Structures are given as C-alpha cells and as structure tokens.
C-alpha cells in the first residue's frame, strides 16, 4: 500500500542501523575446537602418544618398503594374474555402481517430503539409507565375506550397498531443493504419484544424479582396492598377497598401475560431470 500524501514515507526507513554485536557462538566454537585439538595432541595418560621427534627418527631409518620403490617390478603390469584381478576390480566397480544407482534413484525419490507417497514409505526409505550409510564399505565387505565366503561376490554386495548409501543421500539432498511448481502442475492434472515423480521431479535432478553416479564409480574403484584385503575380490587381493610375502617391488607395481587407472578414470569422469553441469 502507498503512503498517504504529505508524509515522507522513507523517514523511518532510511536510517543506518547500528552494527550488530558479534555473537558468542562463533568465538566459543572456535575456542572449543582449539582446546580439543591441544588436549588430543598433548602427551599425557589419555593422549595419543603423538610426538614430533618420533616422526623424524622414523624418517631417518632405513626402510625396505620405501627402498623398493626404486626397484619396482614393472613386469607385474603384464602378469596375467595381476591383470585378471585388475579387470575384476573394474568389473566390481562398474557392476556395484550400476546396480546400486538403479536402486538409489527410487529410494531417494520416496525419501523426500514431497516425493514420499506416505509417511511410512519415507521413514522406511530414510532408515534403509541411514543404516547402510552407518557402516563403511570395508565393514560391509567383511560381513559379506563372513556370510557368503571370500571372492568377488561379497565385494560386489559391499559396493552395491555403498553406492546405494552415497547416491541416495546426494540425490535426496538435491531433490529437497527442486522447484515444486511442476509437482503441483502434475498433481493438478490428475497424474498418479509415480507419474508425478517421473515427469515433474526426475528431469529436474537427472544431470545431478548422473554426476553422482560417476562420482560413486570413482569412489567404488578406490574401495575395490581395499575390499581385496578382507578377501572380497579385486586387486586388493594381490596387494595383500605381496605384503604378506614382503614382495615390495611387486607391490609397488600394483600401486603404480592403480594410480594410473584411477587417474584416467577420474579425468574422464570429471570431464563428463562438467558436461552434465
């Protein structure tokens, strides 16, 4: 509404406010964090036993593992057994990512307030996603190895769950920020719930979702190196094998190979994700 004539409408508005005083919260949290760090580092009964002197003395010592870097056995790069395990690692990462992402999309859709068909479905979806996320993939892998024996299957199951956890969480967060206008439009047109999700929500998050799937693939590729250590398949089995027999020259070859593959995949994935923008 307009101000009535004769009264300067801006008289009470156009005054500079006094600068608000700094709150206590920010400084208090900062002080707390600093105190927490100091107490943790301090060498007392409940400390971590951390000492800078120790670090330097360790660095000075001769170390067969470090020395083996210079003698890296690049022959491993073409050894059939290592190559086979590498392919297995890639397959685990691809299969785990694809299957996990396929489950993650509908799970994310029904875990948001506007996407859930009802309260029970939303709580169920949230619970699944939270429970899966609570444990790191390596622990899932250990549990699956215990349950179904060692090999690629427990590794695949672990990556499957891990992908669900990561992609569901990220996608659900994106869904929380979408434009709800199309949702209202779909409802007003008499669309069924699933149709509304597909027509009004999925197109809005598809580029972000695709980007999360690629990101999950990058993570899974790394995880699959660790999975082998607990007997869940992939290149980690070779790493663990060489470590036990102290064949450091061979171990380093696997590490080099792994770094190269991860680097290439990361670059490709980043390029693709940028395109999706």
């Amino acid at each position, binding site marked *: 509404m*307009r101000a009535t004539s004769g009264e300067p409408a801006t008289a009470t508005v156009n005054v500079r406010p006094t600068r608000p005083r700094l709150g206590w919260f920010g400084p208090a949290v900062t002080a707390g964090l600093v105190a927490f760090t100091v107490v943790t580092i301090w060498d007392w009964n409940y400390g971590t036993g951390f000492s800078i002197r120790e670090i330097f003395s360790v660095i000075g010592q001769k170390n067969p593992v470090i020395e083996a870097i210079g003698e890296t056995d690049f022959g491993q790069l073409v050894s059939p057994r290592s190559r086979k395990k590498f392919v297995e690692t890639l397959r685990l990462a691809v299969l785990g990512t694809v299957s996990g992402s396929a489950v993650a999309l509908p799970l994310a859709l029904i875990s948001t307030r506007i996407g859930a068909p009802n309260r029970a479905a939303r709580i169920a979806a949230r619970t699944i996603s939270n429970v899966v996320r609570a444990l790191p993939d390596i622990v899932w892998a250990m549990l699956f190895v215990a349950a179904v024996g060692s090999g690629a299957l427990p590794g695949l199951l672990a990556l499957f769950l891990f992908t669900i956890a990561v992609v569901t969480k990220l996608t659900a967060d994106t869904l929380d920020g979408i*434009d709800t*206008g*199309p949702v*209202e*439009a*779909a*409802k*007003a*047109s*008499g*669309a*069924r719930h*699933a*149709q*509304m999700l*597909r*027509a*009004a929500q999925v*197109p*809005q998050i*598809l*580029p972000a979702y695709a980007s999360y799937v690629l990101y999950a693939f990058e993570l899974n590729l790394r995880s699959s190196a660790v999975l082998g250590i607990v007997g869940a398949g992939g290149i980690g089995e070779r790493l663990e094998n060489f470590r036990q027999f102290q064949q450091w020259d061979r171990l380093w070859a696997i590490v080099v190979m792994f770094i190269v593959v991860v680097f290439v995949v990361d670059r490709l994935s980043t390029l693709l994700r940028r395109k999706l923008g």
Partner: protein
Amino acid sequence: MIRFRGASVVYGGGVHALNDLNLDIDDGEFVVVVGLSGAGKSTLVRAINGLVPLTSGSLEVNGVNVPSLGTRQLRNLRAGIGMIFQGFNLVNRTSVLNNVLMGRLHRVPTWRTLVGWYPPVDREFAMRSLERVEIVDKAYVRASNLSGGQRQRVGIARALAQEPKIILADEPVASLDPPTSHVVMRYLQQINRELGITTIVNLHFLDLATAYADRIIGLRGGTLVFDGSGADADADVFENIYGRSLTADDTMAKAASGL
C-alpha cells in the same frame, strides 16, 4: 457446472480464506475473479480441483461432490480440469513437448510414462495443443530457453492437452508485461469461445478484468461481494471489492506507465 454452497475454507491459524460462499458457474462461462491478494481468489480456484479442501459446505463440479472424493476419484476429477499458474510451473530442464505431455499423464499407463514412451496419439494431441497457442515450432526446445509469454503459452497447451471441461488460471499474467499479458488473455478467451471450455481466471488488474470477463466475481476477505457482468463493474464496484479508493497500481495500463 460448478456449484458452491456455503463453502468455507479456514487455514491453520484461523485465516478465513473462503467464507460461506454460494456461487454457480455454468458450462462455457468465462469468469474473472478479482480481489486484493489474500482475498481468497487462489483458494476459490484451488478448491474447484480439490488442491485445497473445503473446511465446510459443499462443492459440486460436473455433478460430483468434491469434498467426498477419494484419491482415485479426485485424480479423475482433476484430469478433466486444466490448470494454469502464475509461475508457469514448467519443468525447465526438459523440452516443451515433454512439458505438454504432462497434460496426458492421466490417460497414459504408468509404465509408459516411467520409461518416457508416450503413445503416438498422445504426442499428436500434445502437438495440436501447441499449435492452438501457436508455439509448436518450439516443441523440442528446452522450456528454460523460452520467454515468459512463451512459457505461459506452453502452460496453456499443457492444460489443453488434458482435453479439459474446465480451465482454472491462477494469476496467469502476473509475471508478464502488459503486451504479453494481452496475448495470453486473448488465447484464453479464444479457447473459451471456440472450444466451449469453462474458464475461471484470477486477476488483480481491473482493466484486464473488464476487458476480457463475461462475468466478474469480486472477493473481499474470502466473502463474495460482487457478481455481475464485466460491463456492470465500474469504479464504484471495484472500490467496494478492494475496500479502498483505487490507485494507479490497480490498472495494468497505469501501473505500467508509472514504472
């Protein structure tokens, strides 16, 4: 036929958005609802397709009592009522055609929409809806690449794709400049006259209201304070609807020239 009888809507917090409304709207009418923001225009329109439930009273739309409908029946009712929004409510990240196909969802099996494989008949109908608002050349363009006026025409096409008996337009031109507003209003008028679709439009500019309305309904504080032809609605009537003297902001022509 739309029939409100003693219809009230009270929102949480005790706001009476609609107050004991009695109103009949016949098939094929072009009705403009006017009132200040907060007068209950949006609530009236959204009650008709059940987006806002009545707190008390009755509302009959095409022979069915809206408050008594279950989920599935409510979907059937909505399928026959097209809706046009102030903010267009298009999915910006997808094509114009996909947006219009949203108007066909009710007629297409769920699995087909999930895989995005709409039957040719429905795609054809969507195209024809776009032709009616003369924007079919943009069918494969992303909605985000359109101007405001073009987006609202896509919004109209989406409503038309439902083959509706009724079209509800909630402030369809509030985000548009005056020339574009007239273009959009003319399409709505043309659709009403040529297809005989009952059209109910919320507006807050009184010159737009009198220019296009066959019938004007005035709301103030959720209560019906005027119901008459566009010709009967003069300045006195609008002052009564608004509950204050008129200002330049109340007409689009003057508000625009004052910018």
